[in-house]
């Protein structure tokens, strides 16, 4: 039984089903209360979680998102059932942390992770095209580094406690969102009263969807960065077929729910400053490619015992805190007196994106090994 399921999930149909599942559930989460064109956004939801914990004080984006918790725990359950849970770590953790932080700064310049870029497109937000083009460009640069011998080095098998740390942290977050304790008079824990952070589906629904997607994505290795990378690197469309299914199914679901609104200007939780949509996602794409996975994939890996992926996630959460504390995150377009006011990045945000591109390029250039000699026996 497990063997047959394994063959399905490793097949092309498996990855298409995973993409389709996300494609149908994300718009439904939006219908159930999540922010517009943000049924699921790993970067935004980690940012909201950072805000709820008081790591940043942007009052409109604070909520412990149960989807994130579900992704890690769903992947944990899948890995345990299929005997793939394996505690491993030690592959350049500090570099992964920095990559995670800059990935988040790039994603928040665009206002979304690759999943949300796809969901924004499926909701008619044409700015997503610039973001996706930037993502592909960043990944292409990362592929160039990989071809030239870039490596984060080997991970080692380690204590089970290392692998369990992230799932247990997520259980802690789950307790915090269920019981909502207040630690000081004015918080934390913070929960937004207005703005995107105040928009959320009921906790049980968010958690259940997170668990389901975490389970399926762990089995199928769904990864948006890998989808683009594998096409560029070797013309392999396996993961890309999952991404295609996500967009197609999300678009049809959005149509059925009346959630498609075409255009560039005035899109929800988005800005139409094209250059920074492109460059922000180029930074994110490069960081994901160097770290070996998109934000979703990093969560699933951290659920199956990968301590290095967990460090990347913590880097992203820290990056989100910096992005809002230092005003690096983009502001969305606003409609003032009937006129669209274009949002975008502050000067500090622009400097951060460029600095991120420089730092990630230095990482890609300097962490190289000569092609390993093949041992012949």
């Amino acid at each position, binding site marked *: 039984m497990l063997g047959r399921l394994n063959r399905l999930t*490793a097949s092309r149909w498996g990855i298409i089903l995973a993409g389709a599942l996300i494609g149908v559930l994300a718009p439904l989460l939006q219908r159930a209360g999540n922010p517009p064109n943000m049924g699921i956004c790993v970067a935004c939801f980690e940012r909201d979680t950072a805000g709820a914990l008081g790591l940043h004080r942007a009052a409109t984006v604070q909520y412990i998102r149960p989807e994130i918790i579900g992704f890690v725990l769903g992947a944990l359950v899948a890995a345990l059932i*299929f005997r*793939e849970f*394996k505690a*491993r770590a030690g*592959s350049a953790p500090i570099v992964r942390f920095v990559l995670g932080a800059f990935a988040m700064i790039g994603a928040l310049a665009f206002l979304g992770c690759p999943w949300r870029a796809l969901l924004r497109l499926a909701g008619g937000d044409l700015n997503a095209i610039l973001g996706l083009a930037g993502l592909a460009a960043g990944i292409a640069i990362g592929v160039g580094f*990989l*071809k030239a011998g870039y*490596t*984060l080095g*080997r*991970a*080692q*098998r380690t204590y089970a406690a290392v692998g369990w740390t992230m799932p247990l942290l997520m259980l802690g977050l789950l307790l915090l969102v269920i019981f909502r304790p207040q630690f000081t008079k004015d918080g934390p824990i913070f929960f937004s009263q207005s703005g995107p952070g105040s928009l959320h589906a009921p906790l049980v629904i968010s958690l259940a969807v997170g668990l389901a997607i975490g389970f399926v994505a762990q089995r199928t*290795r769904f990864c948006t960065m*890998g989808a683009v*990378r*594998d096409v560029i*690197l*070797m013309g*392999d469309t*396996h993961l890309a077929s999952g991404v295609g299914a996500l967009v197609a199914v999300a678009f049809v679901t959005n149509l059925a729910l009346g959630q498609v609104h075409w255009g560039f200007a005035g899109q929800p939780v988005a800005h139409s400053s094209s250059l920074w949509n492109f460059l922000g996602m180029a930074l994110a794409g490069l960081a994901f490619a160097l770290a*070996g996975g998109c934000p979703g994939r990093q969560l699933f890996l951290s659920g199956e015992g990968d301590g*290095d992926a967990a460090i990347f996630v913590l880097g992203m959460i820290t990056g989100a805190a910096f992005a809002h504390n230092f005003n690096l995150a983009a502001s969305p377009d606003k409609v003032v007196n009937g006129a669209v006011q274009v949002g975008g990045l502050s000067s500090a945000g622009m400097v951060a994106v460029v600095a991120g591109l420089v730092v990630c390029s230095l990482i890609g250039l300097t962490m190289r090994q000569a*092609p*390993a000699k*093949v*041992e*012949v*026996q």
Partner: protein
Amino acid sequence: MAAIVDARGLSCPQPVILARRALEAGDMPVVVLVDTATARENVTRMARKAGFQVQVQAEGEEFRLTVSK
């Protein structure tokens, strides 16, 4: 004569890149050592797509993939 690629501890796509490089070098068979199910699937998929045969042997928590024509 077998070429051995030790990709244990490396995360994807590196096992695939190393395996492909060894296959292009032409010494057959190529033995690829990996330690995650993801790397096993990815290397196997790449090799089969390129027209090779892959034999998978589980060795404890690791896998030994023998790739041949």
